[in-house]
C-alpha cells in the first residue's frame, strides 16, 4: 500500500515596482515579506542546515550545483500556518505547509495568494507617492523569462527513481489539458502570434529535457532534486517543476489530486504490465498539446501507436479506477480520492464534448474565453498589447486588479476557511506542530526548517526538535501535549529532548 501522499506547492510570484526610477526585485520582494511579517508576527529565521538542493535522486551529488549560502542573506520567514515565505532568486516565494490531501492543499495554496495580497497592502504604506507594487501568480514575463510553481509529493524511498520518471512522464506531458493556466502567444524561439495566438500552458515553452537536476535552464519534465526534508532512509520528496501557477481551484485540485493518485499507482507498481504509455518525444509532445486548443493532436508513442492527450488521460483514469477498486485510495484521503476520480472523469468528458463548457472550472479555458470575448468586442489582433495585458492582469493577486477575481469561478473551499489557513496550520501533518509552536512560543524559537524546530530557551545549548516524520506532530498526536505544557521548556521536557 502506497504511503500517504503528503503534498505541498511552492510558488514564485512575479513582482513589479512601478513609478520608481529604478527598482531591484530582490529589494522589493524583501520589502514585501518584511512588511507582512512586521504587520502580523514576529519573524523566525529559516534554518539552512539540512538544505541541499544539489543532491540528485539518480544517486550522485553535485557539489555546489546551487550553493544554499546564496540565499542565506535574504529574507526568510516561517508563518504560523506552517508555511515558508521568503525571497528566492528575485521573487517572493510562498511554500505551503505540508498537506495530507489535495483539497487541503487547494486551501493553503489559495491562502498564499491572500498572504501576498495582504503583503502588497502592508508594503504600500512604505512606498513613495506614485509608486505601487504589483504581484502576479503566473509563470512568465512574456519575454522568455520563466519562474516556477513546484509541487512536492511524499514517496516511499524504496521505489526505483527510474520507474517513477518513466511512468509519470506521460501524465506530466498530458495533464496540462486541465492544469494549464493559459497564455496569449508563445515564448518559444521563432513562434509568432500567428502560429500560436493562444496556448494551454504557461510553461510548455520552457521545457527542453526529459529528466534532469536543473530548474533554471534546460528545464526537465522530471526533476531529480533529491532533498527529502524527512527521514532519507524512508522517504523521497518528489519535486515536480512542470506545473503552471493556478488560480482556479478546480485546476489546482485536479493537478494535485490526480498526480497523487498516479504516483500512488507507480509506488504500488500498478502501472507495470499495463499498457505502456511511454511517448516517443515527450518534450515535443508537451508543446504540441499546449498549442492545440482543439485537443485533437495525436502523439506518437514509443511503440509506434498514436493517442491524443485526452485519450492518454482516459487511459490513466481507467487504470486509476481499477487501482481504487483493488487497493482503495486511503493514501490520498479516501473521500478526496473518490471525489478526484469523479471530477477527473467529468472534466475529461467535458473537454471531449466542448472544452469551453469548463470556463468556470479551468484556468486556461476561463482565460481563453475572456481573451476571445474581449478581442471580439474591440476587434483586436492577437498581437495587440491589450490582450497581453489582459493575460498578465488575470494573475494579479490584488483583488481590486485581478481579472480572475471577477470571473464566476467555482470554489471548492470557502473564503472563510482560506482566511483561517493564512494563520492556522493544517491539522493532519507535522506542519501542525510547527505552526502551533510558532503561535505560542515564537520568541523562543531560534530557527525552523521543514524537518526541525530549534528552541532557544535562553541557556546553552540551543535545542533542536527533529521532525523527520511528515505525518507525526498532527493535532491528534500533540494536542494533549500542547494542553499540558505552559512553556516551551515544559514542551521540550515532555518530548524528552534534553
Amino acid at each position, binding site marked *: 500500500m502506497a504511503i500517504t501522499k503528503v503534498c505541498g506547492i511552492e510558488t514564485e510570484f512575479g513582482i513589479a515596482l512601478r513609478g520608481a526610477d529604478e527598482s531591484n526585485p530582490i529589494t522589493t520582494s524583501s520589502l514585501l515579506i518584511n512588511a507582512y511579517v512586521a504587520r502580523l508576527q514576529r519573524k523566525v529565521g529559516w534554518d539552512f542546515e539540512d538544505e541541499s538542493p544539489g543532491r540528485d535522486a539518480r544517486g550522485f551529488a553535485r557539489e555546489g550545483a546551487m550553493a544554499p549560502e546564496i540565499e542565506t542573506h535574504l529574507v526568510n520567514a516561517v508563518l504560523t500556518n506552517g508555511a515558508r515565505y521568503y525571497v528566492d532568486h528575485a521573487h517572493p516565494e510562498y511554500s505551503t505547509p505540508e498537506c495530507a490531501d489535495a483539497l487541503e492543499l487547494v486551501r493553503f495554496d489559495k491562502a498564499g495568494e491572500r498572504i501576498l495580497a495582504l503583503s502588497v497592502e502592508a508594503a504600500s504604506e512604505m512606498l513613495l507617492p506614485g509608486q505601487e507594487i504589483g504581484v*502576479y501568480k503566473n509563470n512568465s514575463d512574456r519575454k522568455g523569462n520563466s519562474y516556477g510553481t513546484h509541487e512536492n509529493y511524499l514517496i516511499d524511498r524504496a521505489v526505483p527513481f527510474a520507474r517513477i520518471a518513466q511512468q509519470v512522464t506521460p501524465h506530466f506531458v498530458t495533464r496540462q489539458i486541465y492544469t494549464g493556466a493559459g497564455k496569449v502567444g508563445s515564448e518559444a524561439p521563432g513562434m509568432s502570434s500567428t502560429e500560436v495566438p493562444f496556448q494551454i500552458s504557461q510553461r510548455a515553452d520552457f521545457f527542453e529535457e526529459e529528466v534532469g537536476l536543473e530548474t533554471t535552464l534546460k528545464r526537465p519534465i522530471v526533476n531529480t532534486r533529491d532533498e527529502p526534508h524527512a527521514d532519507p532512509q524512508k522517504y523521497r520528496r518528489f519535486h515536480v517543476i512542470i506545473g503552471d501557477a493556478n488560480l482556479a481551484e478546480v485546476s489546482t485540485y485536479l493537478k494535485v489530486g490526480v498526480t497523487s493518485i498516479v504516483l500512488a499507482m507507480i509506488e504500488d507498481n500498478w502501472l507495470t504490465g499495463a499498457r505502456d504509455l511511454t511517448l516517443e518525444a515527450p518534450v515535443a509532445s508537451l508543446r504540441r498539446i499546449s498549442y492545440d486548443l482543439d485537443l485533437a493532436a495525436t502523439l506518437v508513442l514509443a511503440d509506434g501507436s498514436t493517442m491524443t492527450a485526452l485519450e492518454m488521460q482516459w487511459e490513466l483514469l481507467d487504470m486509476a479506477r481499477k487501482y481504487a477498486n483493488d487497493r482503495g485510495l486511503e493514501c490520498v484521503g479516501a473521500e478526496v480520492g473518490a471525489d478526484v476520480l469523479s471530477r477527473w472523469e467529468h472534466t475529461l468528458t467535458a473537454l471531449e464534448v466542448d472544452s469551453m463548457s469548463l470556463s468556470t472550472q479551468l484556468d486556461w479555458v476561463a482565460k481563453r474565453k475572456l481573451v476571445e470575448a474581449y478581442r471580439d468586442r474591440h476587434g483586436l489582433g492577437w498581437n495587440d498589447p*491589450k490582450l497581453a*495585458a489582459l493575460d498578465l492582469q488575470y494573475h494579479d493577486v490584488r483583488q481590486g486588479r485581478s481579472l480572475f477575481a471577477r470571473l464566476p469561478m467555482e470554489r471548492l473551499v470557502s473564503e472563510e476557511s482560506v482566511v483561517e489557513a493564512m494563520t492556522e496550520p493544517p491539522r493532519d501533518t507535522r506542519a501542525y506542530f510547527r505552526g502551533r509552536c510558532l503561535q505560542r512560543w515564537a520568541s523562543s524559537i531560534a530557527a525552523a526548517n521543514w524537518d526541525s524546530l530549534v528552541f532557544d530557551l535562553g541557556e546553552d545549548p540551543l535545542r533542536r526538535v527533529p521532525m523527520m516524520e511528515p505525518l507525526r506532530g498532527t493535532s491528534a498526536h500533540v494536542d494533549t501535549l500542547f494542553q499540558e505544557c505552559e512553556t516551551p521548556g515544559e514542551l521540550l521536557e515532555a518530548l524528552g529532548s534534553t
Partner: protein
Amino acid sequence: MAEREQKKRQAPTRKEEVVEEAPAQSAQGEKLKEELDELLDEIDEVLETNAEDFVRSYIQKGGE
C-alpha cells in the same frame, strides 16, 4: 501503421436534455451573454490604462 485504440465514450446524458429544452437554452444564452457583456464593461474599466507600457515594463528574472 500504428494501431490506434479507439475508445468511444458515451456523451453525457446532460447534453441530450439541453437539446430538448431549446427555448430555455436561448433564454439562458441571452443571460450568459448579458453577464459576459457586463464583465467586459468592467474589464474595460480596470484594465491597466497603458497596456503597451504595462506589458513592456513587466520584466522578471528567471527563478526556480
